[in-house]
C-alpha cells in the first residue's frame, strides 16, 4: 500500500485554496479561518506561526477533515492532498487518507494516547487500518517503529501511563509515521515538553523527515523552532495569512507589521534592554472582527485605508507574499530592515 503510494505521489503534496471556516457557538459566529491559501511540495517544511486563536489548528484540522461538525462549519475553499480532493471526500475515503497520506500529531502528549491499550497496539493499529497485514506482522512493524523513534522495542507492551511526556510524544510520532505519510502536520508538538526534551524531539522529527522525504507543516508560536526546522513560513493573524515566504524572506526581509512585532518582542541576548517590547493590545474578538485589516487597531503604521478594507495579498517576490494595505503607498516599509 504505502510503497505504491510513494511512487504514484505527486510532487505537490498539499494545496489549500481560499479556505474559510467558522464556528457557531451559542448564537455567536467565530470566524476562525478566513481565505487561507497555500501550497506545499514534497520534502518542504512549512512553519505556521501565530498566537493562540489565530486559526492555525483549525486550518490543520480542516486538512484532515476533523473539524467537529457542530459547532464547526467549513464555509468554502478547496483542499487537495496528494491530488485527492478533501472537500468532496466521503467518510470512507477520508479514513484511507488519514494516517496514510497525511498524519497529524497534537499538542499535549499526556492526553493523546488511549490509556487502556499498549503503545505497541496503538502503533500497530495504524498498520492494521491501512495495510492488509496480520496482527503479528503489524505488531512487528510497530516494534520497529518504536526503535526508529528511539524507544527500546521491549516497551511495546507497556501502557501510556508508564512513559514520560517526551517518550509519549515519540510514541505519538511513531503512530503518525507508521504508514509513511506524504505530509505530517505537527500542531505545537513540543510546547508541552521541557526545553531539553524539546530539542531531542525536534531532532528526531528532522531526521525522520529527511529519512521519509516527508512534507511537514510545523504549527508553532515559537520563532526559534521555525528557524531550526522550517524552510518556509506562513504567519497567521485572526484567521488570515498575513505574510508568507521562505525562511530567508520572512526572517531577513520581513514586510508585515505583525511579523515585525513578533520579532521585536523576542528578547535578544545581544541587545539587552530594560523593557521588552510586546505588541500593544490584543487579538480581536473572533466573533466580532473589524471591517478592515484585523491588525489595524494594534498597528502603528495603520492608515484609514487599512481600517476601511481587507488587505489584498500582494507578491513581493516569486516566493514572498504579504497582505498589508499600507504597501499600496509608494515607498512604504516597516522599520525592520533587510538583514
Amino acid at each position, binding site marked *: 500500500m504505502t510503497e505504491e503510494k510513494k511512487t504514484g505521489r505527486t510532487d505537490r503534496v498539499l494545496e489549500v485554496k481560499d479556505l474559510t471556516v467558522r*464556528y457557531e457557538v*451559542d448564537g455567536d459566529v*467565530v470566524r476562525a479561518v478566513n481565505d487561507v491559501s497555500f501550497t506545499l511540495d514534497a520534502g518542504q517544511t512549512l512553519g505556521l506561526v501565530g498566537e493562540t486563536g489565530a486559526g492555525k489548528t483549525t486550518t490543520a484540522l480542516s486538512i484532515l*477533515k476533523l*473539524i*467537529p*461538525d457542530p*459547532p*464547526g462549519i467549513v464555509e468554502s475553499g478547496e483542499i487537495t492532498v496528494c491530488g485527492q480532493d478533501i472537500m468532496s471526500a466521503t467518510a470512507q475515503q477520508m479514513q484511507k487518507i488519514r494516517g496514510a497520506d497525511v498524519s497529524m500529531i497534537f499538542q499535549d502528549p499526556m492526553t493523546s494516547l488511549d490509556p487502556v491499550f499498549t503503545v505497541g497496539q496503538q502503533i500497530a493499529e495504524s498498520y492494521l487500518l491501512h495495510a492488509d497485514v496480520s496482527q503479528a506482522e503489524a505488531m512487528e512493524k510497530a516494534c520497529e517503529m518504536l526503535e526508529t523513534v528511539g524507544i527500546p522495542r521491549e516497551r511495546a507492551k507497556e501502557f501510556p501511563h508508564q512513559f514520560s511526556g517526551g517518550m509519549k510524544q515519540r510514541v505519538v510520532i511513531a503512530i503518525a509515521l507508521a504508514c509513511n505519510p506524504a505530509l505530517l502536520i505537527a500542531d505545537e508538538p513540543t510546547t508541552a515538553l521541557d526545553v531539553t526534551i524539546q530539542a531531542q524531539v525536534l531532532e528526531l522529527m528532522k531526521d525522520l523527515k529527511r529519512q521519509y522525504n516527508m512534507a511537514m507543516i510545523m504549527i508553532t508560536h515559537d520563532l526559534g523552532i521555525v528557524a531550526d526546522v522550517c524552510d518556509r513560513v506562513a504567519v497567521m493573524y485572526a484567521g488570515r495569512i498575513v505574510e508568507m515566504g521562505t525562511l530567508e524572506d520572512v526572517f531577513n526581509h520581513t514586510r508585515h507589521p505583525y511579523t515585525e512585532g513578533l520579532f521585536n518582542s523576542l528578547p535578544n541576548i545581544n541587545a539587552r534592554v530594560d523593557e521588552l517590547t510586546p505588541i500593544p493590545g490584543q487579538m480581536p474578538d473572533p466573533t466580532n472582527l473589524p471591517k478592515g485589516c484585523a491588525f489595524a487597531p494594534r498597528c502603528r503604521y495603520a492608515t484609514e485605508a487599512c481600517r476601511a478594507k481587507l488587505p489584498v495579498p500582494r507578491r513581493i517576490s516569486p516566493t514572498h507574499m504579504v497582505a498589508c494595505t499600507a504597501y499600496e503607498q509608494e515607498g512604504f516599509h516597516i522599520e525592520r530592515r533587510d538583514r
Partner: protein
Amino acid sequence: MSENTAVASTAEVSAIKKYKKRSQGAEIWRRYRQNKGAMLALFVVIAIVLVAVFADVILDYDTDVIGQNLMESRQAPSLRHLFGTDELGRDIFFRVLYGSRISLAVGIVAVMIGLAIGMLLGCVAGYYGGAVENVIMRVVDIIGAVPSMMMGIAIVSALGVGTGNLMLAIGITSVPQFVRISRAAVLTVRNQEYVEAARAIGQSEAKIIFSHIVPNCLSPIIVQTTLRTASAIVEASSLSFLGLGVKVPSPEWGALLAAGRGYVRTAPYMTLYPGLAIMVTVLALNMVGDGLRDALDPKLRQ
C-alpha cells in the same frame, strides 16, 4: 449522522466563548428557567407541597380520610369519588391527597436526617483526616454497600413499624452520599493555596471552613438533597407496601397500594392512583434535581 461526529474538546470551545457577567444567583436562575421541563416539574412540586401543607385544612381527617362507609365500598371512579372508593368505602382521592402529607414528610425528614449526620461526619472526616477519617469512611462504605431496601427492612423489622422508625431507617441509608460530598468539598478546600494564605494572614480556622467549604459543596448538596428526597419517597412507599412502614390506617401512598393489592381484579383503581401519585411526585422531584444540576454546573460543557 454527520461524517465528523468528532466532538470539540473543552479547550477548543472555552477559547471561543466569552461570558456576560451577572450575579451568580440570577445567572443560575436564568439557566434553570431555560429548561422548560424543569420549570414544569418545579410547578408540579410546588403544587404537591401546597396540597400536602393544606390537606389538613381542606379535608377533615376523621370523615374524609378514615371515615368508613361500607355502602359505598369499591366504587369505580366517578364525579363524586374522583379516584373511586376502597374496600371500606373511603374516598381514594381524599386519601391520596392526605397521603401526600405523610409521604412528603417522611421523604423530607429522612433526607434531612441523612444530610445532618452526613455533613457532620463528612466534614469531620475531611478536616481531621488520619485514623478518624479512615474509620468514618469504612463505616460509611459498609453502610453504603448494603442496598438501601435491605437496610430499611432490617432496621424497621428490628425497631418496629411506625413513621418515626421509617424516617430513621431511610435517613441512615441517605448518610453515605452526603458524607462523600462534604468530605470531598473539605478536601478540595483544605488543599487550596488560598487556605494557606488565609491562615498566614491570621484568619481563624472556623472562618476559613465556613467561608470556603460551604460554597464549595453547596451545589452538589442541593442537587443530592432534591434527588434523594425523590428516592426516599419511593423507598418509604416500598417499605410501607411491604408492611414495614407506616401504621394502619395511615394513608401513606405505599400503604394504599398494599391495601389495594388484594382487590387488583375487582378494583384496580385502588392501586393505580396512589401509585400514579408516587410516580408523578418522584418524577417531578427528579426533574427538578436534574434541572438544578444542569443550572449549577459551570456551563463549559458545550
